[in-house]
């Protein structure tokens, strides 16, 4: 029962998520298709999606959509801000499509505003692809002298004819309008009409949206105006105006009102001429304000781009400096570490060397001292008993009896059949040390020999070594070992181990 319920919940969750993703995709496609017809709806949808913070939508795409919608509305400042945001995100995500499209809309606005520096600054940002190439060709044609530019526009038209991609279709539409304008200016009305009609039908067939349709209709209206077909021109301008008003684009509205005013003037209708002139002036105020804001936004955004370069450089430089500082720090630490390690190793080896030397010397000296002492003996002990004790000590040294934990002065005296006083005096005199030092030294020397010569001792623990040497406690053993050898038993074992492993 529980399992069934669980499966049910999981399935619902998955389908819900799936539905949402599907729903978002649908919303986006819908917005994309209608952005140049119903920009306000697109703005609403995108703002909703941005607020909801869905992970399944690409933010760069959303900002690009906002840029397009505001472009259609003539809010060039907002359009620029969004397009720059889209560029930033697209660069981060390496999304070439969004990057190219965003740059195209920025350039279209800059072209309209005649902001040459701006486009120059952005040109090298265009990624290498066909859309970029086509658009830049269009952009260059705009700056050429007219005769030359019309050739380029015709080439673009050939290139972009029947294109499937919306942005290419847009470039095609804009070029058609440009060519129509070129012929209209030269009063070659038939050619002008041909291209204007083409622009209108192309924007309809490719459903580019009312923004582009309106612009194309203005081109057509211009042709009728030149042909002095004033009522036809009026009809076309009026339909363009309806689209422009629905888009709420002051730039388009202003242009159309100007055209209508001129058209009425040609028909000597002063009243309507005045009306449309006033309307155009009203829109002009709005358009000026928009353009002014856009110019300020452009300045802010472009100088911001430059500032970004500075901070980017500073970041890279700082990164390398930090890396180098870290390396430097590591090297300093390494040097300090090596210094102490080397010193320790030298000290250890020196101490051991001293110890081993001492051990060897002690063996040789013992005989000499013995012989020498036998000559001069300012003592009360009989020579016989002294010799007896000394040979007893020798036997004791050779035997392993000193490793007995119980071994004491009294015990040794008893074993050598003498008294403690005699024994103590003889040890003091012959060994130049008291009994405790004497026995400790014997024990430590014994265990170091063992460690050196018997590999099994290398694996023993310190406590075992202490016991083996005859020490009752592990800590006494360590202290005594260090006092005599100069290093701790662990280091000594390590040293011998190393020597065994690397005998060079």
């Amino acid at each position: 029962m529980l399992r069934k319920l669980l499966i049910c919940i999981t399935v619902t969750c998955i389908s819900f998520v799936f539905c949402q993703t599907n729903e978002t995709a649908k919303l986006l496609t819908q917005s994309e298709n209608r952005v140049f017809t119903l920009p306000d709806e697109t703005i609403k949808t995108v703002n909703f999606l941005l607020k909801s913070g869905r992970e399944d939508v690409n933010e760069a795409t959303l900002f690009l959509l906002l840029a397009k919608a505001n472009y259609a509305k003539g809010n060039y400042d907002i359009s620029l801000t969004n397009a720059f945001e889209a560029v930033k995100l697209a660069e981060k995500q390496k999304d070439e499509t969004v990057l190219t499209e965003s740059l195209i809309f920025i350039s279209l606005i800059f072209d309209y505003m005649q902001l040459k520096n701006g486009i120059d600054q952005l040109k090298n940002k265009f990624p290498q692809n066909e859309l970029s190439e086509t658009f830049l060709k269009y952009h260059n044609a705009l700056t050429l002298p007219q005769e030359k530019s019309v050739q380029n526009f015709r080439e673009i038209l050939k290139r972009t004819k029947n294109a499937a991609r919306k942005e290419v279709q847009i470039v095609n539409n804009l070029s058609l309008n440009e060519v129509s304008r070129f012929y209209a200016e030269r009063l070659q009305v038939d050619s002008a009409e041909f291209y204007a009609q083409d622009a209108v039908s192309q924007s309809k067939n490719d459903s580019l949206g009312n923004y582009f349709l309106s612009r194309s209709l203005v081109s057509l209206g211009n042709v009728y105006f030149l042909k002095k077909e004033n009522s036809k021109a009026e009809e076309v301008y009026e339909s363009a105006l309806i689209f422009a008003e629905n888009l709420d684009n002051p730039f388009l509205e202003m242009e159309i009102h100007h055209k209508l005013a001129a058209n009425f003037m040609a028909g000597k209708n002063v009243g309507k001429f005045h009306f449309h002139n006033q309307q155009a002036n009203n829109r002009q105020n709005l358009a000026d304000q928009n353009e002014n804001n856009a110019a300020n936004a452009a300045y802010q955004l472009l100088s911001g781009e430059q500032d970004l370069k500075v901070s980017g450089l500073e970041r890279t430089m700082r990164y390398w400096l930090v890396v180098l500082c870290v390396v430097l720090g590591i090297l300093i630490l390494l040097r300090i570490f090596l210094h102490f390690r080397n010193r320790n190793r030298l000290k250890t080896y020196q101490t051991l060397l001293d110890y081993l030397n001492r051990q060897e010397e002690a063996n040789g000296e013992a005989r000499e001292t013995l012989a020498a002492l036998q000559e001069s003996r300012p003592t009360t002990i009989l020579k016989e008993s002294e010799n007896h004790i000394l040979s007893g000590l020798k036997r004791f040294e050779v035997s392993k009896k000193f490793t007995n934990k119980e071994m004491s002065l009294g015990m040794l005296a008893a074993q050598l059949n003498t008294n403690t006083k005699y024994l103590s005096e003889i040890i003091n005199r012959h060994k130049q040390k008291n009994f405790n030092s004497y026995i400790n030294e014997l024990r430590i020397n014994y265990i170091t020999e063992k460690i050196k010569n018997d590999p099994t001792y290398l694996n023993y623990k310190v406590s075992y070594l202490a016991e083996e040497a005859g020490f009752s406690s592990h800590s006494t053993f360590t202290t005594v070992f260090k006092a005599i050898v100069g290093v701790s038993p662990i280091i000594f074992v390590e040293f011998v181990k190393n020597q065994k492993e690397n005998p060079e």
Partner: protein
Amino acid sequence: MRNYVLILTIVFPFFLFGQKVSDSLFRVATIDVYEHPERSIEIGERMLKTSDREKDKVSALLLISTAYSSQREYENSLKYALRAKDLSESAGDILSQLKVINKIAAQYHQMRVNDKALQYLDEFDKLLDRYPYKDSARLIMGNNYGVRGFIYRDKLNCDIAIDYFNSAIKQFRLDKDNPMMLANISVVLYNKGNCFVSLNKNDSAKASFTQSIMLAKKINAKSLQAFSQKGLAETLTLEGKYEEALSELKSANENAKDVGDLVLNQGLYKGLSDNYLALNDWGSYQTYYKKTILTQGQIKKAERNSIGISLKKHMEETEMEMQNIRTKYIMAISFCVLIILVLCVLIFHKQKKFQKKFGLLKSRLYP
């Protein structure tokens, strides 16, 4: 764009007539402020440092402010205007305070931040109440009403704006002998005429324009005359008197020739093309229509030019900053690399020495 000419006349009197100019350099800087704003800023800064009279300092600050606004650096412009305001306040000189406040209001209006502009105009009114010598403040009072008129025209409607234009004219008229006053009256009348046109009061518009033309002629202000002639032509066109309109426009065009005001030219070309169109003279229509479009492009280009200059300046600055960063960091990085190399050599050397010593010790241990 339409109040372009007006802002100029409102801003300039501060320097040219409103107060004594301390030296000829300063005068050059004020006239040059739209052509070479950078130089004006430099001179202003220098004057700010060297002069010890508060009044001169205020003038210098206002000059810098105007220079920045012509460079589109509105924030900087406001910063200096506000500094001038503080300074004039601390000096207790109400007249210069009034001037500064007017300037700030005009600045905000130019930036199209009309609410803020109105706030300053209100502050002006409060301060003016405390100023006893109203006679010496006629020009500033008139300017204040003028700015109000422009703001209300943009924000509300022409009916209200006309009231303020009338008040401005009334103030200017009180000081008839001052040629600057006449110029300002002419400007305000021109704007009043435009308002009448948009209110469809053709006769009143005509009267305003005619009066404006008369005053402009009196002081030989060609650009003002041309502007008002353009306005008059517009009213004639609306009456269907295309020929008369054309002759007015042609005369205006003649007057505007030496002025070199693109906004004025564009308006004249448009008027000419419209009237030729009405007279079915397509050839002349085409000529002037093309000229209109061409001038429109030039205006846009000129407007963008300041951004271009600012951007270029900014680019140079960033380039320099980047160079500085590069130099600074490359020095630090090279220093680090050098120390690292020295340290590497040292470590290598020390290790070698150690190995030698250690080897010797070992050989003695295990002969």
